[in-house]
């Protein structure tokens, strides 16, 4: 069984860890786990191909967006490169009625919620602070203030409880919530408070922490001395550590946690051990704080590669892969076209939706700007 850090580079906090759940090794071998393997039994080859496609398209989008940023079409982009398995695995474990609260790097999660990924470009193009309708997809907007949305997720879950949509046993009714955040976020007081509120309320919320080894330039060791999944236990929240580069294991542990949450069993804390293979954002320069060797070691644990090996072994025909390549190519072109065509927002947008109801200060500020701009037009005409 693969042990994070066993190859000696940039070991996750806690070093070797027998508790790590893994169902698929970096070499594409299945691993049997008594309680978690049954959770992926129903995933036949077609389902696995679906997960593979998810990861490939999400990565394609990510690559395209990164390059759009390099070409000046986006102000910024936070690559999800390397974290596809954690995001797709956990996201696909959610049911449509569940609700996701992503951080700002959850491209894969947002994809599983049925959000048109191109909506994510608006934010990073400086054209929108959000980009999609959270309620249409049961997927909240990106939150940029680290950790704060874990409390929103917990509160939402408390709402689900009050709606009576927990523990009814009706799969069309019971729901749960997933809060996504990083290793760095665990240091924020809000994450701890979310664990407290979730625990004492038995709220149906899953805390999905992607430990991608870095909070910008700081390694996880700057945030915690012990493996992050210990954190949940200190708050009475059952906790599990999973290989986040293993899409099957990520799926399985999330599915189990969601089932517990939906049935009234309360929150779970999941630490998904993965690696941010790209820069923190396109503004970042990882050469200042980590080595090529580190990155290489993790490239050998690529979440997509290992599923491909499995698929090939389990009989997926080559046409599937070439077909997917073509699909990805087209997808890339669509993204570029879409991005180029995003119109600049109208000036009025500055004042829109600050309040749900008209507010005098907005009205007078808006009136001032309108008159001021009209003055220019008059002067020009």
């Amino acid at each position, binding site marked *: 069984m693969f042990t994070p850090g066993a190859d000696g580079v940039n070991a996750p906090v806690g070093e070797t860890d027998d508790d790590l759940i893994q169902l698929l090794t970096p070499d594409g071998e299945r691993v049997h786990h008594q309680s978690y393997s049954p959770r992926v039994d129903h995933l036949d080859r077609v389902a696995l191909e679906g997960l593979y496609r998810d990861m490939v398209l999400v990565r394609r989008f990510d690559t395209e967006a990164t390059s759009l940023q390099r070409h000046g079409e986006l102000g910024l982009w936070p690559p999800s490169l390397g974290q596809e398995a954690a995001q797709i695995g956990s996201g696909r474990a959610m049911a449509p009625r569940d609700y996701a609260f992503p951080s700002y790097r959850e491209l894969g999660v947002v994809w599983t919620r049925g959000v048109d990924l191109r909506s994510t470009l608006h934010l990073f193009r400086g054209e*929108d602070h959000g980009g999609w309708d959270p309620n249409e997809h049961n997927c909240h907007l990106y939150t940029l203030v680290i950790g704060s949305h874990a*409390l929103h997720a917990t*509160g939402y879950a408390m709402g689900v409880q009050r709606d009576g949509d927990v523990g009814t046993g009706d799969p069309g009714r019971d729901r749960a919530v997933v809060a996504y955040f990083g290793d760095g976020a665990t240091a924020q007081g809000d994450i701890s408070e979310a664990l407290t509120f979730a625990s*004492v309320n038995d709220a149906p919320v899953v805390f999905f922490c992607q430990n991608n080894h870095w909070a910008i330039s700081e390694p996880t060791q700057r945030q915690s001395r012990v493996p992050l999944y210990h954190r949940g236990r200190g708050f009475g929240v059952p906790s599990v550590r999973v290989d986040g580069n293993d899409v099957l294991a990520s799926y399985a542990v999330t599915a189990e946690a969601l089932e517990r949450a939906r049935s009234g069993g309360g929150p779970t804390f999941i630490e998904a051990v993965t690696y941010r293979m790209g820069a923190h954002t396109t503004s970042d320069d990882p050469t200042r704080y980590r080595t090529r060797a580190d990155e290489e070691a993790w490239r050998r644990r690529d979440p997509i590669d290992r599923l491909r090996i499995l698929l090939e072994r389990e009989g997926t025909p080559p046409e599937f892969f070439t077909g997917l390549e073509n699909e990805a190519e087209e997808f890339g072109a669509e993204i570029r076209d879409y991005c180029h065509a995003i119109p600049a927002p109208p000036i009025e947008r500055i004042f829109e939706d600050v309040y749900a109801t008209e507010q005098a200060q907005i009205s007078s500020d808006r009136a001032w700007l309108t008159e001021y701009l009209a003055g220019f037009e008059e002067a020009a005409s």
Partner: protein
Amino acid sequence: MNEQSVSSQEQGTQRITLGKAINLGLRRAMERDPKVLLMGEDIGPLGGVFRVTDGLQKDFGSDRVVDTPLAESGIVGTAIGLALAGYRPVCEIQFDGFIFPAYDQITTQLAKMHYRSRGKSQVPVVIRVPYGGGIGAVEHHSESPEALFAHTAGLRVITPATPADAFTMIQQAIASPDPVLFFEPKARYWDKADVDVTAADQVLDAPGDVRAVVARAGTDVTIAAYGPSVTTALRAATAAESEGTSIEVIDLRSISPIDIPAVAESVRKTGRLVVVHEAPTFLGAGAEIAARISEECFYHLEAPVLRVGGFHTPYPVSKLEEEYLPNLDRVLHAVDSVLQH
């Protein structure tokens, strides 16, 4: 819910304290809308340290009147989540000085959620904050931090001065689709007045700005005040009357927005303005009012706008609060100054 004990079904006018008026307003709102729920520290069996939520957990249950963990960021943060799920949470912050752990959630999340989502996500959260001094308390229990919230767009900041307004305005706040900071003048919790307990219903249909009211009409000097200072302003008006000065008192009721037209209208009549609040004047709400009125009533002002408020110090020890607070003498002194200018 125990129907028997729900006293707010009574019609007509009752003589009640400001604290009781809020209690009754909360009760009304909870009866009207099952999505309304209360959250905070010690608001359940204890009824809050000021007993404003007295009896509500008994009648509405612990799912709707929630004793939360001792964490203000958690209270407001989970309230935001509850609001996203369709609820209307009313959070109680135990004292003014303890709202700051929730400041990030209020400023970066609550205030901006509607804007960020372009109206897709409404967060009708109300945050009740007992504020102001004059009760002989220890540090952090007497502050007036309203300007620290009003400067941030997306929030509404309102504060009642009378039991009748407290009863109506808490229901307006809860009915508002916008987040509302509801500052309660704690020194006035025990003030009694007649309240028409059916009065709120009509104002709830038109959520939006809470407008200023003329608390007392006058012709020589305008005093604009809010919350606990309205009483002081009214006392000043009474005192000045005996000396032949007619003071108009404007109860602003809202700090975001500030009803500048109402103040301007009065100042165009009186030519003189004194603004009174307990918060430090330096960058307090009075600064905005003075700036705006000095601009908009430039040719009407007979004297500079004067501000009477807290000094640029932390709230002092309670043995000195009488000297610190904008008391009757200081308000009258300012009135004299603008008259003699």
